[in-house]
């Protein structure tokens, strides 16, 4: 278990910032406690200081997980965000979608064309039953 290096922190923040934007600093600097990111076996965990101090007493090969797993670094050092991070990202999420047309096409297309896809899982239909027709 070790803290993240500069490079790793940068890659991870860039990924997370795509989902929550500037609110990322609220994750880093929390009013209700000191939380930090630690790397263990290529996985990034978001732990409070108290849990970290307890977890440090467990030997590395026996430690499975601690705190919340935000994601992992792949063999080629890319960061993959995991679903376990959802609880922390949801309060700060930005609404967004995938562009359906390129920027140039967006300007030329008629007013009723689809420009953005809102990607969601199948459960969205159930969750937002009232608002969706």
């Amino acid at each position, binding site marked *: *278990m*070790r*803290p993240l*290096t*500069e490079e790793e*922190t*940068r890659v991870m*923040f*860039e990924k997370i*910032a795509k989902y929550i934007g*500037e609110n*990322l*600093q609220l994750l*880093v*600097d929390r009013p209700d406690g*000191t939380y*930090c990111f*630690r790397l263990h076996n290529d996985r990034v965990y978001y732990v409070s*200081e108290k849990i*970290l*101090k307890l977890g*440090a007493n467990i030997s590395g090969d026996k430690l499975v997980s601690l705190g919340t797993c935000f994601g992992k670094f792949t063999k080629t050092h890319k960061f993959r965000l995991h679903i376990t991070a959802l609880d922390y990202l949801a309060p700060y999420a930005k609404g967004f979608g995938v562009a359906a047309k390129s920027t140039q096409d967006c300007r030329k297309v008629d007013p009723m064309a689809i420009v953005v896809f809102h990607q969601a899982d199948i459960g969205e239909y159930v969750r937002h039953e009232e608002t969706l027709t």
Partner: protein
Amino acid sequence: MEGQSVEELLAKAEQDEAEKLQRITVHKELELEFDLGNLLASDRNPPTVLRQAGPTPEAELRALARDNTQLLINQLWQLPTERVEEALVARLPEATTRLPREKPLPRPRPLTRWQQFARLKGIRPKKKTNLVWDEVSGQWRRRWGYKRARDDTKEWLIEVPSGADPLEDQFAKRIQAKKERVAKNELNRLRNLARAHKMQLPSAAGMHPTGHQSKEELGRAMQVAKISTASVGRFQERLPKEKAPRGSGKKRKFQPLFGDFAAEKKNQLELLRVMNSKKPQLDVTRATNKQMREEDQEEAAKRRKMSQKGKKKGNRPGPGGKRKGGPPSQKGKRKGSLGGKKPSGLPGLGGKRKGGQHQGGKRRK
């Protein structure tokens, strides 16, 4: 009124005295055992009060501690006192409790080579005097060591022995012999030490070329020879098809697990600020590397031009090896005080200069 207050004061004073006395005197069934040298008091009274106290005996424990400490301090006040630099100090007696060993007993060391030999031969150490009369200086000098009696390296006149080369430096020979003796002694000491700790010495066992070495031995010898240079093998040339050795870089160092949380937070917030700022930040390492490469290229171009001119005009003596490095180029991005640090050096040294690396980043091409 005043009379009343005086009476009240007296009564109060008496009450205070009684309380103090009560506090100071503690009644115990069994007397405590004191070891004042270790400031230790042992209470052998049965702990009936504690047992009756219930699940949280906090108050009773505190009372017990207070009583025992009071008794200990009463004992301390009875010791002989002295004054040390304006402070009254009690002189503690010798400690009577024997504390156990902190570390385990040292295990018996194996004998050194000399000790084994001496034991075998039955040689006993002869008692020798520390000082010897030195005729040369006319005083008593040590038998060995600094300013010793017969130091042959300090002689000012050495006759050339009959069989020796007349041009040989006898003084240097003596000093060399002394150095070799010292080195041999040191080697033997380390060997004895290694034997005592059962460690392996890094030996040059398979390194001398015999005719009969296996492929692995030769490989090992080659590896050792390769890294036995001043730069630990960094600039050694490789054969055309030879592969680079893997895992020969520096071991990575990470921040400690509980570093300074505040500092970590600050660094991360700074990183976020930079990421969100939308303005391209100056990467000092990249900028300096780019600058240095441009300067190297300029130097190389100039040298080529000079050599061409020299060849054309037929062996005209060129302007020597040293050239002041070209006009201070203002190209490329610069931050603050980089200009001050640039040495106007030899062109050949261009590649080895260290630019102003404020963050100490890696040199990235």
